[in-house]
């Protein structure tokens, strides 16, 4: 028995991408997260096709209807209606669009700015580094939501400004991450080799070092996406985010505070939508992290 085991147990070591996918696939939570996230993306993209009603249309006489499984519901409004008779399901679907748009916009801008600032700090060092790091420290010193509120107070509450505020608030994590991994890479031999062989600085930064900082950056992007969605919803809840009647999940929740006791459904759904989305993204992000971190992959 020992000999045949040794004979067969000699597979080729898997390539990095295969190993990543294998590790990711083996994580049930992560796969579930991926499926749910894809579904939410699908709904967000095709909201205009999938939604049974216009999210802004107020159906008189149909306000505060419960969802379909509760008595007194109307089959035309599957998840019921809100205080002014707008269809809950349609609003949730369009809300996915708003939330994901904010999240993705924040993520993309943060990535670009974070990579630029982080690499600049790592490569130029000296004053540039100190300046960037000080500013990031400052941003981190102010509680995220408080800083976002401050920014909104200055530039005014609307969808674009939500993106601006949430991006600024989350930026330090990207910058520090890129800077730290770039600094770690810079000490390695292959960078020295590249330097010695006369690779120009900009090329060194982007072509040689950046790809090696990518793994943690991808993980950060996933977690940053969920953070941004939560943060934006919080602002919306405080009335400082997207303004009514935009079907934004946080703002939808804020509307329902008076109805909470008499019509709990109106409150339950938007929150559930936020929780599900954020949870699914986080599950996926955790899976990404575990799969990209070879130290954790071993067992």
């Amino acid at each position: 028995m020992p000999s045949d085991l040794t004979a067969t147990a000699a597979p080729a070591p898997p390539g990095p991408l295969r190993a990543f996918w294998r590790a990711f696939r083996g994580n049930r939570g992560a796969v579930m997260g991926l499926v749910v996230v894809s579904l939410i993306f699908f709904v967000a993209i095709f909201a205009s096709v999938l939604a049974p009603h216009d999210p802004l249309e107020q159906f008189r006489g149909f306000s505060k209807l419960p969802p379909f499984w509760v008595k007194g519901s109307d089959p035309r409004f599957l998840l019921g209606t809100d205080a002014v008779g707008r269809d809950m399901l349609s609003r949730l679907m369009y809300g996915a669009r708003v939330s994901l748009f904010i999240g993705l916009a924040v993520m993309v801008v943060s990535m670009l700015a974070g990579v630029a600032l982080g690499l600049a700090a790592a490569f130029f060092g000296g004053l540039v580094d100190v300046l960037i790091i000080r500013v990031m420290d400052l941003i981190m010193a102010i509680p995220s939501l408080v800083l976002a509120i401050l920014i909104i107070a200055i530039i005014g509450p609307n969808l674009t400004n939500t993106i601006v505020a949430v991006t600024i608030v989350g930026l330090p994590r990207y910058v520090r991450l890129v800077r730290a991994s770039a600094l770690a890479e810079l000490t390695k031999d292959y960078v020295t080799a590249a330097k010695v062989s006369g690779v120009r600085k900009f090329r060194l930064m982007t072509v040689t070092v950046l790809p090696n900082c990518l793994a943690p950056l991808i993980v950060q992007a996933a977690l940053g996406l969920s953070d941004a969605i939560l943060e934006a919803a919080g602002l919306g809840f405080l009335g400082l985010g997207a303004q009514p009647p935009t079907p934004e999940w946080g703002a939808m929740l804020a509307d329902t505070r008076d109805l909470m006791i008499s019509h709990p459904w109106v409150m339950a759904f938007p929150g559930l939508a936020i929780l599900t989305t954020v949870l699914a993204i986080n599950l996926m992000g955790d899976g990404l992290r575990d799969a990209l971190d070879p130290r954790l992959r071993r067992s």
Partner: protein
Amino acid sequence: MFRFLLKRLALTIPTFIALMFITFVMIRLVPGDPIEVRKGERGISPERLAQLRHEMGLDQPVWKQFLDYANGLLHGDFGTSIISKAPVLHEFLTLFPATLELTLSAMIFAIVLGIPAGVIAASRRGGVYDQTLMGLALTGYSMPIFWWGLILILLMSNTLGLTPVSGRVDLIKFYYEPVTGFMLIDSLLSGQKGAFLDAVHHLILPMIVLGTVPLAVIARMTRSSMLEVLEEDYVRTARAKGLSWARVVGIHALRNALIPVVTVIGLQVGGLLAGAVLTETIFSWPGVGKWLIESINRRDYPALQGGIMLIAGIVIVVNLLVDMLYGLINPRIRHAK
């Protein structure tokens, strides 16, 4: 150790200066006439405007204005609220104990539950406990706490009638002068029967709501740090001594695993204050978070300016304290020159 602290302390100075600068610039960026913004009035006559401008030093060069502002801050002058006409520092200090009580209890709640949860999950890696606890932790981490608060109110207060919905204590039943500002302590000091229990009842839901995210973060961090430490050589040595699993995990591994957890706990302070804004709004908790939101809604920019300055200052100081604690539990740093 001392030099390390001194260095850390010196590093916060530029941060403070930058902070002053930002809050200084902020009030100048707010749309509208600077005087009107600061006085909260509209349509002030030109003569009075000139007079006010002079009074407030706005006719000085900008750098002089900044120095005056910084000087004021250093002497405890954080501006005057438009609405209450009271000094911002005074208002802040009156409300801050409520926030402190809430955040402290939320933090204790998070630590007391989070660390054991993380340890249990790590020592049962891959098992049912691990999966359940980490599933819950991720849910908590993903929780929109404003919704979580509403759900808990709906469940605990309205359906079950267990806890009150808002405030810090039932003001109709109990009244006493604030002594420490901490309702739990003041209620005890007042000697009124049931007051303490009432205060606890009021505190419990906001505490859970605010503590949920840090609880999740601490549990997750403890677990991953623990898993890492459990692979260390010294854990193998401890096991080679024939120590019980509880001792290996609870003493040898935990002590080392806590080092990054303390850092994470420190980093939660900012998050807690941010969460306090939402929690206090939901539970009508009379703290600085709710006050900040109200200031925005009333366009009380001086209050906002001073409040943010104070909150950021607190976060910076707390992070400094965490660094000190870090040195205390990590001998390698304590002995570093």
